[in-house]
């Protein structure tokens, strides 16, 4: 059984906000020189990471199934003369890199994940197996446009970040992973996001052999 406590949770739930609207809303959170080139997902993830006040010795786990969907669309459209800027910002895990490069904030351990219907499960499992004094788990998606019509981009934009430590004092949530039945269900990234956003408890098998208990304190 592995147990960690959450002390800080940040949520971005922009609804149908366009990338331009997100950029305008969050402009004060980023250096002006970086803002123009940042993706919507980079802005959202950067905003939720800002209050985490990363010092560099934390481990950061990042999860996104589709990454920079909009940028990917624009990069594909730039062929046969591909854009170097769109190429580098379309690559997983660009969102976190955009945010931390803008703030010149180095980091020792960084674990970017991707996946499908078990991405939330595997992100939690990865984060809880790290033996760091503090681990930050963040994730997010940006809503696609034409890729969405073909089922290969996220339907929603969102971002979240929370920290994990073994200190129970003043914690807002407790997360416990323990062995469970071999056959089980899944926990996708949007599903994890909704439980965090609405502070919903969760106690069930989230992957084969893995049981999750998320409890709000």
């Amino acid at each position, binding site marked *: 059984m*592995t147990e960690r406590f959450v002390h800080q949770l940040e949520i971005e739930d922009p609804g149908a906000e366009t990338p331009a609207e997100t950029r305008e809303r969050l402009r004060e959170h980023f250096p002006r020189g970086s803002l123009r080139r940042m993706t919507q997902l980079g802005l959202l993830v950067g905003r939720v990471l800002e209050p985490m006040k990363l010092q560099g010795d934390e481990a950061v786990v990042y999860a996104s*199934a*589709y990454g920079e969907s909009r940028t*990917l669309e624009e*990069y*594909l*459209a730039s*062929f*046969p*003369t*591909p*854009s*170097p800027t769109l*190429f*580098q*910002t379309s*690559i*997983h*895990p*660009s969102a976190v*890199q955009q945010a*931390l*490069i803008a703030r*010149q*904030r*180095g*980091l*020792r*351990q*960084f*674990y*970017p*994940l*991707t*996946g*499908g*219907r*078990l*991405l939330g499960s*595997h992100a939690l*499992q*990865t984060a809880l*197996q*790290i*033996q760091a004094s503090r681990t930050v788990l963040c994730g997010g998606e940006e809503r696609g446009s034409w890729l969405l019509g*073909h*089922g*290969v981009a996220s339907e929603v934009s969102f971002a979240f970040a929370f920290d994990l430590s073994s200190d129970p004092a003043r914690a807002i949530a407790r997360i416990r992973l323990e*062995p469970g039945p*071999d056959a089980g269900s*899944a926990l996708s990234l949007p599903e994890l996001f909704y439980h965090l956003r609405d502070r919903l408890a969760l106690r069930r098998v989230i*992957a*084969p*052999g*893995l049981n999750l208990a998320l409890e709000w304190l």
Partner: protein
Amino acid sequence: MSLSPENPPVAIDAADCRTGLGDAAATWRGLLADRCALTLLPVLGPDGGDAVPLALLAGRTMAETAPPNWLAHLDSLAAAIPSEPWGMPGFPVYVTSSNFGVGSLYAFHRSQDVSHLPHATPAAAVEVLRRRFGWGENVTIFSHACVSAHLGLIAAARALAHGTAERALVFSFDFISPFVAGGFHALKILNGGMPAPYADRPVGSIGLGDGAAFAVLRRGRGEFGLAAHSLHNEMQHFTANDPAGAGFAACLTPVLAAAAGRRVWIKGHGTGTLDSGRLEAEAFGRLQPKSPLVSWKGSLGHTLEAVRGGQTPGTTGSSGPCFGATVAIPAFANGAYDGVVLASNAFGGAHAACLLTHD
């Protein structure tokens, strides 16, 4: 972040790879013979463009097919994986890649042929592999460009240390497509020149290659082990490193400390770009002046072959002068060494290194 004392020793039970030179044994033999898998090919495949150095697996082209033409190569590699209930509890799989099936996404965009879409996202591409190879759902996916495979190895070692894994499989693959080749060409580091890792020359250049590999890990000691890992992410610039080389030193120092008492040689990243080549060679030369440094974009598979075979291939494609005195251009006998440091770099100033031991 050394695995010691956080994690107990990890043994490598099996490993193999596929490169433009063949499987692990053929790749090692080819490198020893100074063969280069790179040939000058149009950067956008069937859509043309400048000729750039690319190394495709035998019989593969950049003309995207549905299903992708790289699946057969992964079938061949997967057939060499020791049989276990992979993906089931106790036997996790860690898939790592930079590109997954992004070539299929590019092909869909060009052709609007929806038959490319089932392989077009990372999750979809891995799901195809999972079903194809009969793995269960315990498949975690990491993607962090050229340091991705290191993350899979670290996660596998952690799962073994936690006791949630009896054995763990790390499976890595990347296949070139116009999407990726076009991007690096746009960044102007993939050009008409052949890469010459660590060579001090007027213009730098990289090559891109197809590659796939696996490693099976278990707790305990064996002929080959993974004794330490280290990561560092500079986050200073997307495509450049700290000009003083601080990121290289920060990543290498913990692994070299774990290698104390061993004689190690070093397989560096050595892409062929000038700045990172100089910084990497200088950092290794400063921190480990008695350890020869080579680059052949190696994978674990043919590194093990090199150790078993007693001969380390030299830095294919390079000739003097080089950025550091420790850069080994010709092949050398490695019988007196009992460790290898494997180092990789990626976008965002990402660094990863691990210590491979041979006892």
